[in-house]
């Protein structure tokens, strides 16, 4: 019932005009960042795999709006938007995608492995399910140390079919870990639909046998997402009560930039992008309520365009990591008999045919 009460409130009682405008700005920033990242991938500025958050902007911005600086976030590999919405400037994020020293992970991680210590953004993880026990562990540490905050274990719908998810639900419950299992349910794990892969397609129910409460939310509604996270976050922090949030959205494109999306009906995808575009929905809402006008929307679009271009310029103009730093981050505690900068330089010279 709580969610119905939340939704029935007048818009400007749910958020101030400034907050609403900020959510819109953030969502548009993520949209343009991802569209331009897709372009940069096609231009081979970005290597490896590249998974975009298109269509998930309200899910991400709503989540981040509900969190506090004490909170920690672990995500999967589709995470560009999360780190930006958490407060990391787009420049170092784009630089990481470009593999530059100025990137958020020093160019060592790439698109799937973004990290930012200052904002407790604890990493993008690219082995499906791997981040979930880690997030429970972080929540375990908060409880152990008596610190405030909760931990977000973000994952895709496909992750709810892997064993690590279930072990994590069990451990989080028996150890009273303040963690939210945040499922970004866009209906497809690569080319496998939720219904084909999960005997229980209502993913929010999957904690039932662990006595972990779950709730579904419209992931294209930024305020709905924010409010459910706020509510379950407060309970997790106060009572050590984990919960599942099943945020349903619509994937705009294929699984990754290189996925041609042939397994989904093109007409269905076209209609889905119209019906479930969180940004279009939100701009209509703001216009209808007189919170913004067309001129303001245009000014935000211009600002976002400029900021994403600046991020690309920053990434382009940043230096590559140095060869002599190949082993720099090998160990946190140095020990004897490990390779040195000289070893790195020697090996790289041979690799380059310089002998």
């Amino acid at each position: 019932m709580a969610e119905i009460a939340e939704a029935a409130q007048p818009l400007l009682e749910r958020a101030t005009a400034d907050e609403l405008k900020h959510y819109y700005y953030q969502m548009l920033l993520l949209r343009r960042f991802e569209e331009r990242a897709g372009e940069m991938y096609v231009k081979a500025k970005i290597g490896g795999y590249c998974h975009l958050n298109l269509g998930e902007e309200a899910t991400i911005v709503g989540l981040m709006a509900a969190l506090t600086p004490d909170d920690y976030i672990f995500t999967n590999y589709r995470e560009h938007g999360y780190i930006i919405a958490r407060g990391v400037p787009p420049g170092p994020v784009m630089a990481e995608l470009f593999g530059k020293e100025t990137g958020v992970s020093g160019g060592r991680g790439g698109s799937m492995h973004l990290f930012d210590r200052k904002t407790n953004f604890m990493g993008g993880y690219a082995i499906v399910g791997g981040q979930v026990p880690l997030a429970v562990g972080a929540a375990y540490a908060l409880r152990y140390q008596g610190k405030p905050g909760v931990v977000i274990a973000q994952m895709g719908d496909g992750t709810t079919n892997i064993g690590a998810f279930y072990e994590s639900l069990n451990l989080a419950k028996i150890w009273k870990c303040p963690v939210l299992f945040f499922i970004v349910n866009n209906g497809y794990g690569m080319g496998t639909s939720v219904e084909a892969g999960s005997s229980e397609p209502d993913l929010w129910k999957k904690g039932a046998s662990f006595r972990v409460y779950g709730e579904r939310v419209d992931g294209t509604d930024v305020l709905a997402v924010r409010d459910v996270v706020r509510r379950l976050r407060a309970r997790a922090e106060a009572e050590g009560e984990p919960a599942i949030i099943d945020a349903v959205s619509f994937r705009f494109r294929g699984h990754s930039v290189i996925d041609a999306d042939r397994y989904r009906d093109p007409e269905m995808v076209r209609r889905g992008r119209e019906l479930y575009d969180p940004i279009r929905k939100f701009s209509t809402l703001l216009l209808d309520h007189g919170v913004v006008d067309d001129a303001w929307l245009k000014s935000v679009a211009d600002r976002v365009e400029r900021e994403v271009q600046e991020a690309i310029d920053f990434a382009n103009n940043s230096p590559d990591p140095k060869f002599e730093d190949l082993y720099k981050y090998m160990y946190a505690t140095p020990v004897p008999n490990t390779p040195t900068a000289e070893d790195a330089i020697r090996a790289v010279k041979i690799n380059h045919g310089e002998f």
Partner: protein
Amino acid sequence: MPVITYRQALNDTLGEELARDPNVFLMGEEIGVFQGSYRVTEGLLAEFGPKRVVDTPIAEEGFVGVAIGAAMLGLRPVVEIMTINFILVAIDQIVNHASKIHYMFGGQVSVPLVIRTPSGGTGQLAATHSQSFENWFAYCPGLKVVAPATPYDAKGLLRAAIRDDDPVIFIESLALYDTKGEVPEDDDYVVPIGVAEVKRQGTDVTVVSYSRMTAVALQVAQRMEQEGISVEVVDLRSLRPLDRPTIIESVKKTNRAVVIAEDWYSYGVTAEIAATIQEEAFDYLDAPVQRVAGLEVPLPYAKELSAASKPNANSLIYAIRQVMRGTKRLR
């Protein structure tokens, strides 16, 4: 100097580190109420309470992942995996996560985690409970892997591992838990990770070993002395990083080398050591390097078959005699 068992050295060290640092805590199956499947954690729950000595359900992937996540926030978990065979259930968390996190995220966060586990076979534990997988982890950059052979090294290396900011796989041995050795009291020594030790000086042949096989090598070295063969025993102590200089220095002195390990022959630890010697001391060798390792079968249960499949003193003596003659390995 007091003489204590390997098990007691581990138990004492865990207790001392729990007392020293409130961020250290133990986690594992049956380590608390049950007092440890092999009694390594005996008495610690009573002394430190359930916050510091945490019994886990049977969910290795889950609780190893929890330990890694907790370590990322500054705790120093010491996880017991009942035997190394069960570690395979958690290998994604160790290999794809713990070993990568510091490097992959540009040094912004470390994983000060220790995973203790006994490796190798004893008794008739059969195919799924007698394996040696330390080489799987030693293969992986980002991990540190140690395998002490004596109570002294067990204590010093466990201290080093717990105080280290990187993930350390700490290899124990069921057959070593009751072995005894001198361990100083009131001495906060550490044995550095990544440094081997010449456990016995010799002039004719170098035996390279670690963990239980070092104990075997030291016994054999005594026997060989009666045959007039002077055996030098290099105890690796750490498998990653590997102390190649100590191995090479010894082989350059003795000109002969035998490598012994309990794991399987092909692709095992002995292969890495033999390759190192070939690369760095080829001109000093008077005979091909001999390797002694487990026979390549799923370890059978039957008592005699089981014992015959594992390397022992006889197989080492045979290899030493072969290397002294300069003959090639017989299959």
